[in-house]
């Protein structure tokens, strides 16, 4: 059981790290601001989400696990609203702002 | 080479960089930024001393750590005051420069010039 959980953790954390890689590549390589924003949100949601998922079984106690989930949910909320706001600012000010 | 030494050198370099920016940058806001970097470098020195003083089951000496916490808060209040001063300078003169020449847009006649 222990070994299975460890393997699951390695898989989930690695997948999360992959999404951070993908987000960075997108942020660097995509042609314009809106597509770059799209790449960023993938790293935000899935990258951190998978890392949290991988760490959940390692958490000592329900409270610690709850805090991990809370971190993810807060990052989700921040990511979702911030990308909305940045996108609106870009549309208003053209590509300048 | 321990981690504490690494971060100590990093802090020393930050002090040097911040000092350079504070002297050389003409824009007041950039001076404030540089000064904050300098402060961060000094705080890191405290952190390194604290880390080296790890004892009694603690990861670091709590006294320098507490001083850094106080320092960060004071540095923030100084930054806020300095930024408010620069913004006020901008409101009054339409520019934000520390040059010795009188500001571009005069606003009172005598007394404003030098």
């Amino acid at each position, binding site marked *: 059981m222990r070994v299975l959980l460890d393997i699951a953790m390695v898989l989930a954390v690695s997948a999360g790290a992959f999404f951070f890689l993908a987000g960075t590549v997108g942020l660097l390589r995509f042609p314009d601001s809106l597509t770059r924003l799209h790449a960023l949100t993938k790293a935000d949601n899935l990258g951190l989400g998978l890392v949290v998922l991988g760490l959940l079984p390692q958490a000592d106690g329900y409270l610690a696990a709850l805090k991990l989930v809370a971190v993810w949910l807060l990052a989700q*909320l921040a990511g979702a*609203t911030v990308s909305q*706001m940045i996108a*609106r600012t870009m549309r208003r000010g053209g590509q300048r702002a | *080479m321990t*981690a*504490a030494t690494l*971060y*100590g050198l990093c802090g020393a*370099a*930050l002090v*040097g*960089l911040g*000092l*350079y*920016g504070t*002297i*050389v*940058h*003409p*824009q007041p806001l*950039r001076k*404030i*930024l*540089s000064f*904050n*970097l300098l402060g*961060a470098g000094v705080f890191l*020195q405290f*952190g*390194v*001393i604290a*880390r*080296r*003083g790890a*004892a009694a089951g*603690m990861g670091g*000496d*709590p*006294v320098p750590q*507490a*001083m*850094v*916490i106080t320092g*960060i*808060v004071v540095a*923030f*209040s*100084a*930054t*806020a*005051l300095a*930024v*408010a001063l620069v*913004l*006020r300078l*901008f409101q009054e003169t*339409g520019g*934000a*420069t520390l040059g010795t020449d009188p500001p571009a847009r005069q606003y009172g006649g005598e007394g404003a010039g030098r």
Partner: protein
Amino acid sequence: MSVALALDAGLALLVLCVAVWTIGAGPTFAAVVGFVAFGLLLALVWVRLAAVDVALTEAAIGSGVTGAVLIAAAARLRLTEAPSAAERPSATLRLAAVVLCVLVFAGLAGLVLYPANPAPTLAPAAAVHLPELDVGNAVTAVLLAYRSVDTLLEKVVLLLALVGVWSLAPDRFWGGAPGILRPARTDGALVLLGRLLPPIGIVVGVYILWVGAIAPGGAFQAGAILAAMWLLVMIAGLRDPPEIGHRWVRLLLVAGPAVFLAVGLAGFALPGGFLSYPAGHAKPLIIAIEAVLTLSIAVILGLLVAGPPERERRR
């Protein structure tokens, strides 16, 4: 252990790169964003130096609140950049500055590379009295018991800085409300964030304050979180910034230092003198002081970010 050391080396290098960018960047806004990133990385450095209390403070104040002040200022000063940047100092002065900075760096690096041996430490002395105070977190014990006069004076410094900021207002606005936060347009996403986040933030703030007695956390960090939540509500346009002449604003500002001072003066009745706590009652007193301090810190930090009053007082 080498993996951790590689991480440390990479992190130190990264911090330096971002710092060089912050100094050397062309547009001020780019430098300010660099500084926000710098604050975040610095929080990680503090974690690596086993100073999680400091990391929390840096994350909340160094990166979050300072970043907000600087970003707003950079946007306001955008027009002054070009004329101001033209006033570059002469090559001689710059060269002299480089020499000075290299000398300072070399001196500090020498101190780092050849430290005192054995390293001086007050950790055992701090640990001895922890059971008496019933406070598990040594940093909190230093801040509110061993060196509490520092913390008290620091609150006074914060108040003085706020008085300094306020005194920059033109006479006609004295007693009015700060204006820097008024949103240009209502943004649905921002309003949603302003409604959802603050209740969670208040819970987290209270938690950080409470846990500060036994684990990293405490009044400063909690105060900064609460201040950020308050600012968010004001930026989202859900609440106006308060008029600085209001009695409750003034009361909240001085409540923390006043309670601290009152407890300190009561210490004269004890053998220890100023700022000593009666045996057995240290922990409740410390928590009570911290709770009031947190409120005062939150209001002071929020008003420092909000800036001087820019609207006339409503009669």
